[in-house]
């Protein structure tokens, strides 16, 4: 996808493409229908060492670039949105540990390499109104180097399947809601009490019900970098870059199916262009807008990361990557819906080669992953003061 991809990166993209084609794609409909975890595809990614792709080479990892992981998100998204989203969410957590290195976390990254651990996040919380930048639950005061926490999470992506979690919490019992830290806990250090069920409209294979989470951990597993910095420099922009590549993948496959539909119609009636052909052309321009935003944002992200990372704290930069999220999450369903209108009933039915129902439903989750409404509210406030945007 990118021209800057080096040898190791190419291996990652090739593995993603192969697993997407041979494993994720063939299981996608069953994963979707049963709202079950894409265990075959995640198993194949483990076997290929993809879960440690972002871990630096000196810790034994793949040392892959953000471009290559983004390309892998895209390739997986073309065959199974849920598999791609699990991969993306995992890589976001790894990126946070890699971009804010600390000894205790390096130790865990080695374990990710050796055991191909799957890491999830616990950021949403009951009582915060969807604001990731504030927490209710807190880290207790350390006793003999041990701390504990409890958190009520309305959704934990692949919560039953992850080996470890990064959780946002208030720094201490008397800390303000916005004074947060990020905490690593392994499954054997935790109790997870499931809350409610998981029967959503799309992204059904991410299996993200709610949990009440309790954990007791050594103090070193609390990251010393404040979460506000991790969020600004890494978690938020990396999430928006990787997610948008997943959505681009989903929308691209919907477009490809629409194109295949029009081609098949043209073959049946050679001579006259099929009626849907003009709509397909309109759809291409919608897809290319989405692709342009997603790819440009990736390049900008890489440029800033390679230079002065404090720029991620500037309002103009925050607005830029928020806009990526909003634009991509709004445009992906537009493309999927357009594909459905090209394919007509053949796209609406769930069992044709031109079915795009799953794509449309998966893409509809995009505007909810950190609600666009909330991001608009943040942006509206930043726009009051930011100069050049």
């Amino acid at each position, binding site marked *: 996808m990118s021209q800057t991809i080096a040898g190791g990166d190419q291996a990652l993209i090739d593995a993603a493409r192969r697993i997407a084609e041979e494993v994720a794609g063939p299981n996608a409909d069953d994963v979707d229908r049963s709202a079950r975890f894409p265990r075959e595809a995640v198993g194949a990614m483990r076997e290929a060492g993809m879960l440690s792709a972002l871990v630096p080479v000196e810790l034994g990892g793949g040392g892959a670039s953000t471009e290559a992981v983004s390309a892998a998100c895209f390739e997986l998204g073309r065959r199974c949105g849920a598999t791609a989203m699990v991969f993306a969410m995992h890589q976001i957590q790894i990126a946070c540990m890699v971009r804010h290195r600390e000894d205790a976390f390096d130790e865990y990254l080695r374990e990710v390499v050796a055991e191909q651990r799957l890491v999830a996040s616990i950021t949403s919380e009951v009582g915060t109104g969807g604001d990731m*930048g*504030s927490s209710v639950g807190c880290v207790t005061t350390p006793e003999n180097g041990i701390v504990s926490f409890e958190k009520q999470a309305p959704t934990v992506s692949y919560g039953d399947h992850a080996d470890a979690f990064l959780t946002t919490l208030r720094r201490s019992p008397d*800390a*303000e*809601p*916005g*004074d947060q830290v990020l905490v690593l806990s392994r499954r054997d250090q935790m109790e997870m009490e499931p809350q409610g069920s998981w029967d959503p409209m799309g992204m059904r294979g991410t299996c993200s019900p709610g949990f009440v989470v309790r954990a007791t951990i050594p103090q070193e597993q609390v990251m010393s970098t404040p979460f*506000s910095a991790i969020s*600004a420099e890494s978690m938020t922009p990396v999430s928006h870059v990787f997610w948008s590549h997943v959505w681009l993948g989903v929308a691209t496959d919907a477009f490809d199916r629409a194109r295949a539909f029009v081609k098949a119609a043209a073959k049946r009636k050679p001579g006259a262009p099929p009626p849907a052909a003009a709509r397909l052309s309109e759809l291409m321009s919608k897809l290319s807008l989405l692709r342009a935003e997603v790819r440009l944002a990736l390049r900008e992200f890489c440029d800033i990361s390679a230079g002065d990372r*404090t*720029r991620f*704290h*500037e*309002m*103009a930069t925050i607005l830029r990557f928020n806009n990526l999220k909003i634009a991509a999450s709004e445009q992906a369903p537009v493309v999927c819906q357009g594909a459905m209108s090209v394919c007509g009933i053949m796209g609406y039915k769930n069992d044709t080669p031109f079915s795009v129902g799953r794509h449309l439903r998966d893409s509809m989750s995009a505007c909810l992953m950190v609600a666009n409404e909330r991001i608009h509210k*943040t942006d509206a*406030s*930043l726009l*009051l*003061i*930011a*100069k*050049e945007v």
Partner: protein
Amino acid sequence: MKDQIRQVIREHGHLAVDVDTLADDASLYQAGMTSHASVNVMIALEDSFDIEFLDSMLKRSVFESVDSIAEALGQVGVSA
């Protein structure tokens, strides 16, 4: 200048505590200032000191404390 900064924070920072109980280098965010409140503080500072911050200054760390705000105001020409 710092009294004027404190006045702005008192009116717009929505801190959990009285700003006068905080040292000049104490974190306003740890004292409960939200991101939204910090934007209002920035706007009010521009108004109160009749200046404009540069884009590169519009970030969380610059509005972390009375000291860091004073330093930023110094950079856009406000004298202590």
